[in-house]
Structures are given as C-alpha cells and as structure tokens.
C-alpha cells in the first residue's frame, strides 16, 4: 500500500470520528461512541497488510478498524444513527459494527471475548482450505481477561493463522496499564510460545511492516503472532466523558501523548498539495456519506425482533 493510501486511511478515520463526535453532540447518534482519535495508525497499518478475504474482529473502539477494512462510511454513519441502511441495519450500533462480506466478524462489546472468535474462524478457514488469516484487535485492558489468554493457548497449540493486535493506549478507561498488568504485555503472549513484538503504534508504515511479516508467517502455516502497538487515545474513553470529568490523565501527559499524531506523521510524508488533495477528497466523501446516512430511513419498530433467530421461530411470544 502506498504512502498516500495509508495517509488517506488515517485521515478518513480521523475525520470520520470527529464528525461522529459532532453527531453525538447534536443527538443524531444516541448512546455515544468510544472515539478512536489518536490510534488511527494501528487500524490503517494492520488492515493495509490484509487481503479483502482476511478476517478481523473489532472492539468497542472499533470505527477505525472497520473503515480501514473497507467499510462504506455512509453505511457506518447510518449504523451509528440507527438507520435501516446501516451496516447492521441499525441493529448493532457503534459496538457491534459487522460486515461479513468484508470479513468483519463484528465489533464486540465484551472486552477480551473476540480473541477466541477470531481464532476459531481462522482455524475453520484453514480447515476449509482457505489461505486467509484473521486479526483480532483489542486493548491493553483485554490482556487481563482470562478468556483472551485461553485463546492465546489454543491459537499457539493449533498453529492457527491469527494475529493478536493489542492497542496499548495506556489506559483501560481510567486504569493505567502499569496498575493493571503485572509483567509485560508482550510477555503474556510469549508465555504461550507466541512471538510477540512491541512496536510504535503511531506510525502507519511501521505498523504495516510488522503486520506484513506476521501475516506472511501465519499464511506460511507458522501460527499466531502478537503485536503490541504503543499508541495513545487523544480523546475521551467514551463521549460520556465529555460531560463527566474523570481526572486520570494530567495536562502534560495529554500534550505529550498527542504530540505524536499519526495523521501528522503520515501526512508529513506527502507533498503539501497531495495532502491537501487527499484531505479534500476525504471531506467530500464524508459529506456525501453523512448526507446519505442522515437521509436514510429508520427501521420499523414492528420489525424489532427480526433476525433474532436464523432458523425462524413461528411461536415467538411476547
């Protein structure tokens, strides 16, 4: 993937998030979001290393992952606004965005849950003769969830073509990583015999390079890799924090953290006029996307239970 493509992705995610935050403020998005601002290089770099038929699982902070994997921003805005034209027909919202046709097995609102889902899907794809890999994204908080550690064991034992991508943004909500993680993050994966690397998660090119190596390894049948991407969350844990002051990060820390901006880091690699052109392109795309989403129909309340079961249940009672 080219320099400009990577830039386009981080810029797209950034501006998508900034607009989504505005829509939360204006009430078009109900329930709030977990902004991805500051972490764009991880999604962009990782997904740039994937094929369209590769799989990912995402998190509560997942807009960046699905956009980088190719989701149509209009359908993503529409999902956040709970519209019928949304990715999940308005049934999932921010924390469950899924597009199976793009290999997106869904964001998951339960921290640590998706690691084993990605592992199972990757294992199944191999058994079906496919050469796809799966990537499971999660935060630093997730490495304290036993179910995720169990998944590391299965993936390593069975040499599953899965990548575990930990976005270490320093906090699980208000909990600093050093108060929550005894030992090291990469040490958790290494304990299961999984090669694990700690990389600069603010630079899309570095993330892309590390992911490409891990993907090659997985496709070659050598099993899982773990990447700790050191990053920083520029905004709130969740938009509710815009109203509640939780006071767990100092002003100095915030400004140091924000000083390494993935959009700037990648943007600096472009000629000024190319960058301006991409920015304009992104803005036009998002204008159109937001317009489409805002103009989409709301689902019919009478269909609230549609899709509850895959095999229909005639006698469903209220």
């Amino acid at each position, binding site marked *: 993937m080219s320099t400009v493509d990577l830039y386009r992705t981080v810029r797209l995610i950034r501006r998508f998030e900034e607009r989504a935050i505005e829509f939360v403020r204006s009430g078009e998005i109900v329930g709030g979001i977990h902004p991805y601002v500051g972490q764009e290089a991880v999604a962009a770099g990782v997904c740039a290393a994937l094929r369209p038929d590769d799989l990912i699982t995402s998190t509560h902070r997942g807009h960046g992952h699905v956009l980088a994997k190719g989701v149509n921003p209009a359908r993503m805005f529409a999902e956040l606004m*709970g519209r019928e034209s949304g990715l999940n027909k308005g049934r999932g919202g921010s924390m469950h965005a899924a597009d199976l046709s793009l290999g997106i097995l869904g964001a998951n609102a339960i921290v640590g849950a998706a690691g084993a889902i990605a592992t199972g899907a990757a294992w199944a794809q191999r058994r079906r003769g496919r050469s796809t890999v799966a990537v499971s994204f999660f935060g630093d908080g997730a490495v304290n969830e*036993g179910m995720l550690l169990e998944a590391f064991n299965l993936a390593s034992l069975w040499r599953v073509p899965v990548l575990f991508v930990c976005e270490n943004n320093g906090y699980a909500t208000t909990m600093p990583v050093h108060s929550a993680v005894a030992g090291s993050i990469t040490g958790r994966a290494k304990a299961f015999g999984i090669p694990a690397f700690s990389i600069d998660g603010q630079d899309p090119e570095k993330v892309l390079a590390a992911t490409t190596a891990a993907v090659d390894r997985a496709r070659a049948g050598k099993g899982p890799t773990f990447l700790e991407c050191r990053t920083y969350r520029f905004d709130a844990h969740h938009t509710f924090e815009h109203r509640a002051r939780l006071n767990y990060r100092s002003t100095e820390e915030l400004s140091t953290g924000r000083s390494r901006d993935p959009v700037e880091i990648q943007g600096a690699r472009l000629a000024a006029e190319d960058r301006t052109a991409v920015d304009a392109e992104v803005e036009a795309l998002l204008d159109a996307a937001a317009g489409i989403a805002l103009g989409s129909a*709301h689902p019919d309340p009478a269909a609230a239970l549609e899709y509850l079961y895959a095999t229909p249940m005639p006698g469903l009672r209220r």
Partner: protein
Amino acid sequence: MPKLSYLKALNRALGDELDRDPDVFLLGEDIRAAASNLTAGLFTRFGPDRVLDTPLSEQAFTNFATGAALAGLRPVIEFQIPSLLFLVFEQIANQAHKFSLMTGGQCKVPVTYVVPGSGSRTGWAGQHSDHPYSLFAHVGVKTVVPATPADAYGLLLSAIRDDDPVVVFAPSGALGVRDDVDFATLRPVPLGLGRIARAGSDVTVVALGHLVQDALAVADELAGEASVEVFDPRTVYPLDVDGLAASVARTRRLVVIDDSNRTSGFGAEVLAVAAERFDLDAPPRRVTRPDGAVLPFALALDRAVQPGRDDLLEAIRGVLTEGGRQ
C-alpha cells in the same frame, strides 16, 4: 426537604457502611475515578485499602471477593455493565452461593454485587442492555431491584449486612429518579418485604425497579376508569408472597410488568404463585420483554422490545374487562 437521587442514595449507602464497618470494602473497575458515579468521593474518603480498582479480570476478582469474605471481610463489587454478571455466573451461582451448604455451615460469603445501570441504557445495544435478575432468582441468589432512592439506600444497606451473597440491580431507568427525602429517616429495608406503592382495589399491578414509575403513571392515567394497586416486591428473591397474596386477595385481578424475558422470568413466577394460590376473577397477564430478547441498537427498536406503558395499559384493560380466559 432535600432531594435525594437514586444514584446518590446508593453512593450514600456505600459511604455509610464503609464508615460503620471496617470489614466492608469496595472493588471493581474504575471505582476510584468513579466512572459510573456510584463510588463518587469514596476513594478520597476511605483510601486505597477500602476502594480497590481492579484490572479487567471479572472472574478472578469475583472469586477474590469470595475468598476475602471467607476470611471475614464484606466485599462489595461494582459491575459496570449487566452482562458482566454472565461472565461471572459460575463464580456467583456455583461458588459464592454454594459454600455455606457444601461446607455444612462452616462459613458464610457476605458479598454484595451491585450493577448501577442494568437494563437498557439507551443506545448501548445488544451486549450492554440485559436485565438478568430472574436468572439470579432462579439459582437462589438473593436478588434486589429497588425502585426509589430511599429503597435503593435501605436495600443496599441490608444487602451488605446480609451474610449471604446478594445481587443489587439498579436499573438505568431509575438512577436519575429524585425524591424528597428526610435523611434522618433513611434506614435499612429488609430483604424480602414488598410494599404497596399505590393502593387500589380493582387490579394489582406488580412492578419492579424503574417499571414502578411506569406502573404508577399508568395507574394515574386510568384513575377515572379503575382503581389500580401497584405492588413493588423490591426483592425478586426471596419474593414477598404474603404481601402479594394480601394485595391480590383484595383486587382479584393481576398484571405483572417485568423487564426480563417472558419464558421463566420473574413474571412467570408471579403468575405461577397466583395460579397455585388465588382464585382470580380474570386470567392474569404478563407484560415482559419478548422471549430471547436481544435489544436492537436503534432507539425505536430498543423501546419496542422493552415492556412499556402502552402494553401495560392494554393488559390492565384486558384483565378488567375480561371474566373468562383469553
């Protein structure tokens, strides 16, 4: 009289118990910063040994609390979201709950589990909007769903002082309720004792938690038409069967509104008890979430899946007009 909010009442109960009993301590995620506001001010007041921030390790910290209880302490755990109770179902139902009998009465496990924000939180979608009180009642863990600030205070106090595990569900829809309260009158409310939230003579509506407000509103709406009694059991398990019986004996008609799924939920239990004991003048009705409910994200769908005032109104009118079976 000063106003007390439901959430503030829970916060006050925690503060009062931490103050009164040195064996009480709190643990959970982001409780120092008080992300949910449940524990606001308590870290500053009681320090790190009494207010313990945990990593995202729900299974371990739930069993950790059981161990601390076996060693004589009285832990209170905050769970940020209701589905975390699914994640620790084994630890509560199969560990904490079973120690007393399995050891032949050698020990007790006085742990309180509090979920501030159970049920739909408006826009948090499928995995954050459960209201699993019926599950805990079924397995026999004491289960409380307070409706008012005074009850939130008093039931949480009783839960902490109880020698068994107790789950306290604080519905999202109730957290903002504010009442005029004379603080001097705040006291423990015993587990297992319901209350008549509104007296009436034509029909008993059983409601819990935030649905009590809805039941009261519907009762007001029907005021010219019928005299609706609202019975709030406050505790799902043990259920105040005598209180329920006394009300139904007067009204001889029964409707339950229940924010859990229909099959084998709280509503099913109330109807079963009624069927066993009372001769009603009309078949009773349940207003519940549908079977297998998963709350869709879009607001109108989320609302459509929850039991609402319109459904309740219709059910009440149904039992009032109907003598025979449906």
